[in-house]
């Protein structure tokens, strides 16, 4: 009988070879496992099989390397499973603060948080080492500071307060002034009056600020000292929020109010082009990630709050099954698709976000991690259950190493951190 090599026969033969090979592999790995157990029992090294023996005379074999990689992966995973890191909640400063900042491009290897004390206007820096260390780094007193914005990666600060006539005053100070500078500017440099909104770019060397008057809102770019202001934008309506997006873009969103349609534009600081991103979203709050790939936004109508992530390239929206306001979230700088959100445990009846901004309603938050690609979310910390502590987070920030999330507790304006990752163990 002749063998006829048709397609069907070739497939059958190939399948047979693969099955035999897989059986041999399984048998070999069972044999190796038995051997390994035996060696461990009698205290011998497994390096012979892993190709790392320095006294056997054998050099690393390819097969040994493959097993080594498999062993490491499994070990890492089982270690991860055995020692799941539990996030740690810490109150960093017990007095009310007026603003904070964590550098994300220092390259120093240490996470820092800078903050301004509300009562004195003094600036402090905390280094988040094994031992948390707080240092007062600016002693120039300004009482009743309402807001502070850090510039130049923490080397400057703009403190904002109300004068007796209820005008907003904004003063720039370098954190460590030269002697000449301190003599020339004993109280700091005054920026324009009644700056309604102010934010600094990621490099800390340019500020965007909005001045509102009867003629509407005007947006300017300048140095943190207010030098050479350049008007780049204006609007007849006066109340806007701004967020730097990437290096040269600004996301301008109308201030939100429950049920009122909000509009968000992206403007380029070097051109005057405006790109409409969202319109007529009730109670719109936006939060774009640093690479501008994803736009997190929330809509709110009375106590009906929902959260979405927009893929800015695909123009698709994904509803996130968590109920929170987008300004209670912070994007990762390392993994652009990851966003951390403080999510209220319960949303009581109310008018959001208005009554939260007014300080009339406070939340008890849980910290969640959300993946913008898959929509998967993971609960990291429930402070009320785990620490018996109620926190209502605002102004969340993530440290350079992404081990810490810092936030201000809205109810008392104190500064807190949540350690979300363990320190890397230093190899000996």
């Amino acid at each position, binding site marked *: 009988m002749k063998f006829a090599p048709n397609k069907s026969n070739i497939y059958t033969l190939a399948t047979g070879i693969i099955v035999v090979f897989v059986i041999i592999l399984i048998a070999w790995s069972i044999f190796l496992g038995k051997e390994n157990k035996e060696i461990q029992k009698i205290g011998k090294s497994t390096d012979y099989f892993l190709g790392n023996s320095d006294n056997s005379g054998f050099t690393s074999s390819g097969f040994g390397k493959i097993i080594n990689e498999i062993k490491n992966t499994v070990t890492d995973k089982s270690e991860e499973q055995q020692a799941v890191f539990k996030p740690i909640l810490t109150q960093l400063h017990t*007095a009310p603060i007026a603003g904070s900042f964590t550098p994300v491009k220092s390259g120093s290897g240490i996470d820092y948080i800078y903050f301004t004390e509300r009562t004195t206007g003094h600036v402090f820096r905390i280094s988040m080492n094994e031992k948390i260390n707080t240092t007062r780094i600016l002693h120039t007193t300004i*009482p009743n500071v309402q807001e502070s914005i850090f510039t130049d990666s923490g080397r400057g600060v703009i403190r904002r307060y109300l004068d007796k006539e*209820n005008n907003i005053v904004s003063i720039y100070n370098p954190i460590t002034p030269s002697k000449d500078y301190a003599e020339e500017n004993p109280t700091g440099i005054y920026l324009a009056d009644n700056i309604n909104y102010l934010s600094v770019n990621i490099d800390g060397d340019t500020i965007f600020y909005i001045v509102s008057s009867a003629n509407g809102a005007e947006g300017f770019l300048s140095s943190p000292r207010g030098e050479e202001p350049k008007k780049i934008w204006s609007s007849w309506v006066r109340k806007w929020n701004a967020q730097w997006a990437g290096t040269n873009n600004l996301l301008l969103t109308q201030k939100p*109010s429950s049920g*009122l349609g909000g509009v968000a534009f992206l403007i380029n600081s070097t051109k005057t082009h405006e790109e409409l991103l969202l319109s007529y979203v009730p109670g719109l709050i936006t939060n774009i990630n640093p690479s501008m790939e994803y736009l997190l936004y929330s809509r709110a109508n009375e106590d009906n709050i929902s959260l979405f992530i927009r893929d800015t390239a695909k123009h698709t929206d994904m509803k996130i099954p968590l109920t929170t306001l987008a300004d209670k979230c912070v994007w990762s700088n390392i993994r652009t698709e990851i966003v951390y959100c403080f999510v209220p445990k319960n949303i009581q009846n109310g008018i959001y976000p208005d009554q939260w901004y007014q*300080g009339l309603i406070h939340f008890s938050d849980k910290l969640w991690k959300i993946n913008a690609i898959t929509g998967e979310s993971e609960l990291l910390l429930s402070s009320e259950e785990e620490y018996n502590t109620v926190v209502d987070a605002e102004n969340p920030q993530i440290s350079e190493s992404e081990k810490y999330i810092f936030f201000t507790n809205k*109810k008392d304006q104190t500064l807190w951190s949540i350690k979300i990752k363990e320190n890397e163990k230093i190899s000996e």
Partner: protein
Amino acid sequence: MREILFSTLIFFILVGTTSALTLDNATLQSIGAVSSPIDTSIEIIPEYPGPNTRVQATLKLSSVNISTAEVAWVVNNVILKSGKGIQTIEIETGNIGDKMEVSAVIKPTNGPVLVVQNIINPSSIVLLQEAEVYTPPFYKGRPRFSTNSIVRLEAITEIAKENGSIYSPDELTYVWSRNSIVIPEVSGIGKSFIRIKGPNYLGNDLISLKVLDVKGSTRAEIATFIKSGTPQLLLYEKKPLIGHALFNAINDTEALSGRVLNIVAEPYFIEVIDKNSNLLKYTWSIDGQTLPVQNPPSELSIDTDESAVGKELNIAVTIKHLKNAMQDAYTSMRVGVSLNVNDFGL
């Protein structure tokens, strides 16, 4: 020749091939088609679509039974869809400046071939609104409209000219209406932003806007409701070093501590520039007893003695707007007094 062209067209219609097809006058004449006959049109919904928006084009014609007619939809000279009785198609508009010519070629069971056309020129319009009312400095929310207050409206348009460039707001005519009645005093060329008085008590005004190009053609339309609301009056603590604790409003039955209690009234959404404006008359009372006018009028300072500790004070404040009676506001709080001196601000 005429028969050949007609057959070609019908072939495309019957086969449904997506092919280039120029529906110029010569072509139409050669097949004896009747262009844009009376009582026929293509209705576009939405009427003035934005860029990259899905629109519905529907054939409106009364003289022909469409269900039995062969219809070919041609978009920018490309047959998009064809077959018997296709009355509606969905298409997506392009960017601003990308005009889209939508045609329907109809072959009734008897009678001449009909051709109907419409042009979609996408435009973008956004209407911003904001009330001219007081909110505290550094407040993160938007001022809400309250009865009879002034509202600011601004239309931001992107409307393309024939050559694809964008009209500046100064070249366009803006026709503003309230409840479908034109407001001539704020309408006109370049009037892209306006200030108008909002509705009365419990009113809900429909403010609409039509934007016309230099030829007088309507190019964009938008409308929004403005609903009357009421001001809100909230109380906060003021501490000497912290200042106004606007992050935490005083809630009813809340316990406050200190020898001196400083309480600040914040009238959200009231029509003044400054909360201590002469237009507002504050009346404070404690346990029903009216207090003299405070200085500043929005702040109340209470000296508590030991006899007050553990007691509850009923603090009430009324604000009367001297020019707008509909914006009066009132609040009252029962506040407990303790002498647990707070570490901060005392």
